[in-house]
């Protein structure tokens, strides 16, 4: 296997493959940085153009776009509070307050380094641990998925901040949004009001762009016309020296990387969840949880490292088992099929050069971020902020519209995006936290359908939820997290 890895490294060092990685990463940062455009859409649009090329050129582009966009999404999240991709939602929590405090340069550098670290760890996990991690994927049945979803939902307790009522209402609203559409288990149409559009449910991407990217734009439109560019924001601070960054973040990075890799190997979860769970863990574990949301750089590090660590590991079930865990993995498998490769357990042996080559590309494009990210973000993309806000608003709205339109080719999605934007704007104004909504949308349906699948399989024997070893492990973890949270609260009440 080691020989195959080395040989593949030689293959991808060919100029064409190197160029594709470079172009892919640059394109990825750009796509991520433009709100509305996202990696899934970019890869889906670009892939057919590469069918006549060598597969490793196509895969180099995919690897670059995938890793680059995870960092790119952080740029508008930090500078404008607009998540460039849905995975960057958690980055806005602390990234934007940092910019407000004049620490934009540090936030961008933190995001860039954290993305690169997360992506690198994830690619190394894919390279060395793919077979055992794939066995983990298989060991997770509906019961385990149910507990994972419950675990994620309890983290809402950390995210709600001060106001329990509003936090819970936001989470429940999210679950309700996720429930709309045909129920896959019974075929029942829920909350569709006989509307053809609603049968398939609200498209996740459209909901997330609407709720998180539209409200900041609406707020910007109301403000006095001004350019947002402030050179003081991008001056290098003492605290952003490389060694200092590593010293500050290594704990957060290691935890977020593990969380990202674990979320990645579970088909269907995704980068949003990895970022939110990493952010939560960082906040839960911090000495001063109150400083999160006020511009704590650790929050940015956790979110960006988490969403990038999801990337390569989400390819593990796809490459080792032939089971695509997300849309990008599905596109990769589709591309391999068109190039005459058979996805499945023999891919690693039958097409070692291509599979290991792709893994190397995922690793190298993450490392490329160290070089490209800092330079590009600060010198080039920040220039967009020189645009007067009166033009930034309409052009961003056009980008979001084109992004949403190209997902499904459906103009109804545009109105839905605007509708959710309005809801997000109003909830913001009423001091509702928006983070629980995204967890509700992602995890509510996941918990429900896996609960019911488990009951179907076990013929309504609920003891199944407590007797399987992995389930017990997740429950134990859940209790530890909740217990420590309660203890902390208790101590603070008594001590303070």
């Amino acid at each position: 296997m080691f020989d195959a890895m080395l040989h593949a490294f030689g293959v991808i060092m060919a100029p064409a493959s190197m160029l594709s990685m470079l172009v892919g990463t640059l394109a990825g940062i750009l796509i991520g940085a433009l709100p509305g455009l996202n990696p899934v859409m970019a890869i889906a649009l670009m892939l057919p153009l590469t069918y006549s090329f060598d597969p490793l050129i196509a895969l180099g582009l995919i690897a670059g776009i995938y890793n680059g966009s995870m960092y790119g999404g952080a740029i508008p999240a930090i500078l404008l509070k607009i998540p460039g991709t849905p995975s960057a939602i958690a980055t806005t929590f602390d990234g934007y307050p940092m910019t407000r405090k004049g620490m934009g340069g540090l936030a961008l550098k933190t995001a860039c380094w954290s993305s690169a670290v997360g992506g690198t760890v994830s690619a190394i996990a894919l390279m060395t641990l793919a077979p055992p991690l794939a066995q983990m994927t298989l060991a997770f049945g509906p019961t385990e998925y149910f507990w994972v979803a419950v675990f994620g939902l309890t983290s809402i307790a950390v995210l709600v901040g001060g106001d329990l009522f509003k936090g819970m209402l936001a989470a429940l609203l999210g679950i309700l949004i996720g429930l709309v559409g045909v129920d896959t288990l019974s075929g029942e149409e829920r909350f569709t009001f006989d509307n053809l559009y609603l049968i398939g449910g609200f498209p996740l991407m459209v909901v997330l762009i609407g709720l998180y990217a539209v409200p900041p734009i609406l707020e910007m439109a109301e403000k006095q016309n001004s350019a947002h560019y402030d050179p003081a924001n991008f001056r290098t601070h003492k605290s952003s020296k490389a060694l200092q960054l590593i010293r500050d973040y290594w704990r957060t990075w290691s935890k977020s990387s593990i969380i990202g890799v674990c979320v990645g190997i579970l088909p269907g979860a995704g980068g949003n969840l990895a970022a939110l769970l990493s952010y939560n863990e960082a906040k839960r574990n911090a000495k001063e949880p109150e400083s999160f949301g006020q511009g704590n750089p650790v929050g940015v590090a956790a979110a960006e490292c988490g969403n990038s660590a999801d990337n390569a590991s989400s390819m593990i079930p796809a490459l080792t088992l032939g089971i695509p865990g997300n849309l990008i993995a599905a596109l990769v498998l589709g591309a391999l099929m068109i190039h005459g490769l058979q996805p499945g357990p023999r891919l690693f042996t039958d097409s070692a050069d291509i599979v290991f080559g792709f893994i190397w590309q995922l690793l190298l494009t993450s490392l490329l971020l160290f070089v490209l990210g800092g330079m590009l973000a600060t010198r080039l993309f920040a220039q967009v902020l020189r645009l007067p806000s009166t033009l930034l608003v309409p052009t961003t709205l056009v980008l979001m519209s084109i992004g949403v339109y190209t997902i499904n080719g459906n103009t109804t999605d545009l109105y839905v995006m605007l509708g959710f934007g309005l809801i997000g704007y109003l909830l913001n104004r009423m001091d509702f936290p928006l983070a629980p909504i995204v967890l509700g949308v992602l995890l509510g349906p996941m918990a429900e359908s896996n609960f019911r699948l488990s009951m179907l399989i076990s013929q309504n024997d609920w003891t199944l939820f407590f007797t399987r070893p992995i389930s017990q492990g997740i429950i134990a973890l859940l209790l530890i997290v909740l217990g420590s949270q309660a203890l902390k609260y208790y101590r603070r009440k008594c001590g303070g």
Partner: protein
Amino acid sequence: MNYRDFCTGVLFFLLGIGTVWYGKDFYDDSAYIPVSVGVLMSLFALGLMLRSLMNSQLIQMRLMDHPAKFIATLTSCIGYFVLLPVAGFYTSSTLFIVTLALLIGERRPVVILSITLVFITALYLLFALVLKRSLPVEFFLAV
């Protein structure tokens, strides 16, 4: 008393009740979660309402900073979405950018036109020439 919280509480309460009322007829086990979500939502909404009633200080916060600009942005968006399939992507986007920029206070024609031109050209290069993704066809090209 906090009117804002009280009103949102009422809205969420109604949404919760509606969810229960609509969800109770769902088939068998597909009804459990919708009904529980509805019940929980109305309970938390009641909590919010009670708390806002007990709150003694009057909290004032404007819903919008600048209603005129807010409404202008929303209406322009809707106009844009209506126009999009009819007039085509590039035409309606150009119109939308120029109109909205004027409505929210841009008064320098050179700035508006130059930025719009550069932006639309870049989009055209990207989508029509590189990605070859078809967008709603321009009205003057449709047969």
